[in-house]
């Protein structure tokens, strides 16, 4: 830029090829030509190859019946279902394991991150050992280890370990009773919604009051009381009831109830353990990033240990923690694709694996799968941008 302006002031002694603007344009044209040429070359090759193999392309296969089975599905699935349903089943399974993994990894990761900073020698060392071991071993290896270790350690179906509340655990997974709410149960949901609205309103009011008068209100306890109180009241008054369908042992396995297959358990467990180690490091870094002067200033204001953390340290640490934390969440979601290796029917396994093989539509299946992950990523960065804008430090 600067050179260009100089060029305008002085006599245009710069030769044509040395003008940065022209050079820039030339560079770009070269890049564009190479890129377009490359794409044309690939598309041409692909078309020729597909023609030679007598293959057709297109997404019409999505509306054909799949004919295969999926072992774990949140949606009703039969072999007469369509390929697009297989896609949805895979997507939901990915989302399910990612969601569970994210929740558990966050809890475990924060615990361990804080433990690493503990003044207690044993606790901090244990946390360090955990992080250093888990971070430095490939996730795939850990998944194999958990899956086959879990399988080996579990009893056969007939020797299932009976847990309280009609639950069972064996090689085929964890079986718990399925709650079946009756029609009246709708009122309970309404109650819950009202309670949540109430809590939001309460928080708003408490904040206003704090700003106006400086008085604090025990928001957390009151919120809990409202949530449980209102929901419980609706439950009792509406006369709703929930029946439980317990799992029953049949010839090969338990029937009925809710079943969590071992692939799911191993994958969720492995993802949690692995990601928690990274989250712990993020949390530690975040807390350490808060300047010591902040602690000292808070102390000199006379804040108690608890308040100091809650009002001064944590809010500042969170600003540092949240962006890498979200990228860990995204990583966890992407890593859930390794479930294919241990037989969990997530998106890559169902769609880029089975569906691809049965239809032979490699390009379409891989493209759709990649697109899904791309959407996850774009969504996450959109949320992140919004968050960053919100918490940006407003300096003088």
């Amino acid at each position, binding site marked *: 830029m600067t050179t260009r302006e100089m060029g305008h002031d002085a006599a245009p002694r710069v030769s044509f090829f040395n003008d940065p603007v022209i050079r820039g344009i030339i560079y770009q044209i070269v890049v564009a030509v190479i890129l377009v040429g490359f794409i044309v070359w690939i598309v041409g090759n692909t078309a020729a190859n597909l023609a030679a193999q007598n293959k057709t392309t297109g997404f019409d296969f999505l509306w054909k019946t799949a004919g295969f*089975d999926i*072992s774990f599905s949140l949606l009703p699935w039969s072999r007469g279902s369509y390929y697009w349903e297989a896609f949805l089943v895979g997507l939901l399974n990915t989302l399910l394991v990612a969601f569970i993994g994210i929740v558990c990894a966050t809890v475990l990761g924060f615990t361990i991150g804080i433990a690493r900073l503990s003044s207690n020698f044993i606790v901090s060392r244990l946390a360090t050992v955990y992080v250093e071991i888990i971070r430095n071993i490939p996730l795939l290896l850990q998944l194999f280890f958990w899956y086959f270790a879990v399988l080996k350690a579990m009893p056969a179906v007939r020797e299932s370990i009976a847990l309280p509340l009609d639950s069972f655990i064996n090689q085929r997974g964890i079986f718990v009773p399925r709650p079946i709410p009756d029609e009246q149960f709708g009122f309970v949901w309404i109650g819950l919604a009202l309670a949540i609205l109430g809590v939001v309103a309460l928080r708003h009011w408490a904040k206003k009051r704090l700003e106006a008068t400086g008085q604090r209100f025990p928001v957390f306890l009151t919120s809990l009381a409202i949530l449980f109180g209102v929901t419980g009241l609706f439950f009792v008054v509406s006369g709703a009831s929930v029946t439980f369908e317990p799992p029953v042992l049949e010839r090969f396995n338990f029937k009925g109830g809710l079943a969590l297959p071992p692939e799911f358990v191993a994958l969720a467990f492995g993802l949690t353990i692995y990601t928690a180690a990274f989250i712990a490091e993020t949390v530690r870094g975040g807390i350490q990033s808060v300047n010591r002067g902040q602690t000292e200033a808070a102390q000199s204001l006379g804040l108690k240990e608890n308040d100091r953390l809650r009002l001064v340290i944590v809010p500042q640490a969170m600003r540092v923690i949240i962006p890498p934390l979200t990228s860990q969440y995204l990583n966890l979601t992407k890593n859930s694709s390794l479930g294919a290796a241990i037989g969990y029917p997530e998106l890559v396994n169902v769609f880029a*694996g089975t569906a*691809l093989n049965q239809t032979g539509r490699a390009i379409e299946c891989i493209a759709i799968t990649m697109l899904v992950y791309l959407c996850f990523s774009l969504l996450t960065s959109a949320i992140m941008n919004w968050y960053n804008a919100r918490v940006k430090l407003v300096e003088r």
Partner: protein
Amino acid sequence: MQKKLVTLTATAILGLTAVSAQAAILDDVKAKGYVQCGVTGGVPGFSAPDSNNVWTGIEVDFCRAMAAAVFNDAEAVRYTSLTSQERFTALSAGEVDVLSRTTTWTMSRDTQLGISFVGTMFYDGQGFMVRKADGIESALDLSGAAICIESGTTTELNAADYFAANGLEFNTVVFVDQDEVVKAYEDGRCDVYTTDSSALAAERSKFANPDDHIILPEIISKEPLGPVVRAGDTQWFNLARWTYFALLEAEELGVTSANVDEMLGSDNPAIKRLLGVEGDFGTPLGVTKDWAYQIIKHVGNYAESYDRNVGPATPIGLERGLNALWKDGGIQYAPPIR
């Protein structure tokens, strides 16, 4: 100096990308000096490496037979282990010259993938393996049982069809890699392991206690397994096909690797034609006149290969059954060489 480095790098990269001109496969193979053979990751009896990476098996023998026909040397083979997902692209892209990998001959594969099946090396059918302790006697007892399956196979669809047709509840666990399928079954994740019954027997032979597992009597599908080559190259296709027929013909005529040298002096005109003593059937195939002699000398005939790899005397222990010659009650039949 820099130029040299660039050249060397380029050579290194080119060493890893092979460009074969659109020439005939046979010329390519002759030029590079070996047959590139696509095989499984390790199914004993069909294609499996031992601890020194020496591959054996009935399908490996087919590749060795082709190498013997082309080079008079059965060891001029390189093996590429392929998953069931990548095998067809690998073949049609020319990564392998012949795919000999427990591949079921189906109409859609033969007509839609740009490949040609050479013949049926092994008549197989899909079966079920269960633990003896479970007391299952028939596949019809399997309603609700957990079934371990490898993804991307005809097996997956056959089983679904069979269970639907018999009104049984179908419950699968699908793995991408065959090793994981077997391991999951062995570790008790599934009650049933299903695949081609020959492969079942092969896998069973690998278990710590093979006798704890039984293979159910039901065979639910036709699984003709055979070698595959790229479509469009008739010369290579013919060579592959007649290599297979030569193995059968040799068994039918009683020519074995042990007696092939004496048989050169045989009076039987069929044997004379087979061994290239009379007439020249090799040159039109693009190989030497004694191509079949070389095959039998180095690899043996079909029966030898069968007995050595999957026959009753091996841990896999499969009877000839359908794979016996037509004159012994089977359906293996080779057109005459004349």
